[in-house]
């Protein structure tokens, strides 16, 4: 169960790790073993193929997050940890949303998708699948609208985050 102020306690972490087998399991195991939360987690190679980048969203007060960052840094394969919270950063996630779309609702689905700059990536006689990218609020908003029409399935990538370029 989420507490009311979960959003305030949410921290987005960027974790640079050596691109080796088992590293993800070390990171995930650290969270489960020490009772920390994982809200979302994404991982992929960086421009340097020897390094992967994990974006992880966790929930905790300052003390817990400080401990999480220290524990992550302690892992031998972790090169760097950035806590984006209270810094200026861009975050995006992508969602694939399969919505009921019959003769009646099709136009409405398209309209909503357009408003959010979504793309229809698959069509069937009874459904549309929409690809949409944005921050949490945007994904939340489109999902709320589509829910009223009928969401069949949703797949979200989880957040990816990057700091803003220096001005």
């Amino acid at each position, binding site marked *: 169960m989420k507490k009311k102020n979960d959003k305030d306690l949410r921290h987005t972490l960027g974790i640079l790790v050596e691109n080796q*087998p088992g590293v993800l399991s070390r990171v995930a*195991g650290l969270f489960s073993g020490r009772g920390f939360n994982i809200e979302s987690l994404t991982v992929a190679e960086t421009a340097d193929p020897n390094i992967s980048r994990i974006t992880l969203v966790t929930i905790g007060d300052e003390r817990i997050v400080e*401990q999480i960052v220290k524990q992550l840094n*302690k892992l*031998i394969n972790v090169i*760097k940890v950035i806590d984006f919270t209270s810094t200026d950063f861009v975050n995006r996630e992508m969602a694939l949303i399969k919505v009921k779309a019959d003769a009646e609702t099709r136009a409405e689905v398209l309209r909503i998708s357009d408003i959010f700059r979504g793309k229809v990536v698959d069509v069937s006689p009874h459904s549309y699948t929409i690809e949409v990218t944005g921050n949490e609020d945007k994904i939340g908003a489109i999902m709320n609208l589509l829910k009223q029409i009928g969401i069949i399935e949703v797949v979200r990538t989880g957040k990816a985050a990057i700091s803003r370029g220096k001005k």
Partner: protein
Amino acid sequence: MKLTGAQIFFECLKKEDVKVIFGYPGGAVLDIYHEMRNHDIRHILVRHEQGATHMADGYARATGKVGVCLVTSGPGATNTVTGIATAYMDSIPIVVFTGQVPTPLIGNDAFQEVDIVGITRPCTKHNYLVKDVRDLARIIAEAFYLARSGRPGPVLVDLPKDVIQGETEFRYPKKLNLRGYKPNLEAHPKQIERAGKAILSAKRPVIYAGGGVISSSASSLLHELATMLQIPVTTTLMGLGGFPAVLEKDQGTQELHPLWLGMLGMHGTFRANMAVSNCDVLIAIGARFDDRVTGKLSEFAPKAKIIHVDVDPTSISKNVPVHIPIVGDCKDALKKFIEFFKSEKLGDIAKKRDSWLSRINEWKKTYPLAYEERNDVIKPQFVVEKIYELTRGKAIISTEVGQNQMWVAQYYHFTKPRTLLTSGGLGTMGYGFPAAIGAQVAFPDKIVFDVAGDGSIQMNIQEMTTAVTNNLPVKIAILNNSYLGMVRQWQELFYERNYCATCLSGSPDFVKLAEAYGAVGFRATKPDEVEPIIKKALETDKPVIMDFVVEPEEGVYPMVPAGKAITEMLLV
């Protein structure tokens, strides 16, 4: 020239100056065992792989060097887990080599396959599965470096059979490239200065030292700092020996070091717990505010400004908020502290400290460590005192877990680092005896004692064969109370005296058991038999079991009930 994986294994151990391996063979590591004949390295054949890990651990604690184990895949590997977790909790450098099924079979549920890297991930500092013989030398070099550097700990290296049989050029890396591992050893001078100033203005300072002081070989610096500023010192269980409980000149008297508070925490001394609870500056060095030390967190050192030196940043402010954190090696920090104070005007320190030290002395007089002396039954504390009297300053003492361990911590006065081997963090029954064997391997001429419980000793008694066949004359003193005494004590105090599953009647005759193994057994049932038996044991050049039949329902006091403030001690 190309070498096989097995040859590379031994070349690497040579580079790391490994003199002894504790091991147990099996199919997956046969190539290594076959190659062993070509190398000048001692192999101690244990009787259970858990024993091997504790021996490597005891060897490491006693010497400060990295202990090494070699076991086979599957059950051999899983048998090491308790020993690895024990070393992990106490930050002990060991490297454990496990055999593994050939790489093409991994993941197939092959015979004696187990994912030991997955199993030990949370209880090793780091671990490796070697997938290519060309990585072998580098990985072994990294394993040793990781085990002994920074905050030390166990590292496991899993060796598939085909990797061991593979061939490649042998090159031992001179420089390691671990991008994500840069332990911060140097204490920041600014923080030292801040902490130094706080210490200078303290009226009631206390040093609380832990195992970090021992692993960084900083005990003489700790003593220098404490005497220079006349600051009383308490240590954790892991820190015992890191500060001399008795001064050299007072050996042979009953005098304790005037600054020595004894151990703190759940079974700490009255004066240590009172001093910490009333101090205005607490200097934590190489300790980690474990719950057995702090009791109720909100009431731990409530009046104190807390300074914390630790090489592991995760230890700082984990349980207790710290006012002045100092990340760094204890030795470096202590050196810098001493330099700092040398450049300051200290004034008449003795006078400045007078009232604080005399207050502590009052606590010491009101509630000294004590037990009721009897001449009809043996008190376990009496046995520990006798062992201390007869071996002081000369012996390495290991313990099992339970009351025996706490009585050693209270009544054996450690004066040197690396003379106490005990499982603090994990509390592993069965640790003491194999650890003692490991220490005896390192120091064949030293007196090595395992102070044991009648329960714990049965958890790794099979290693008696290892001791006998390798001429390792470890002395086991069983404080035989016919109970899982520490658990019984909790049942007595908190579970309506319902002694469910803690009575150990039916234990073997330990004297006969010793003899069956080819060791020597003695029994004492009366107090006046205690000293003669210890003397006889010390004169025996074989392993000895001394079965001290002690008061069955003796308790360990003081005791702070779990979750209570450390001032809320139950006293005798």
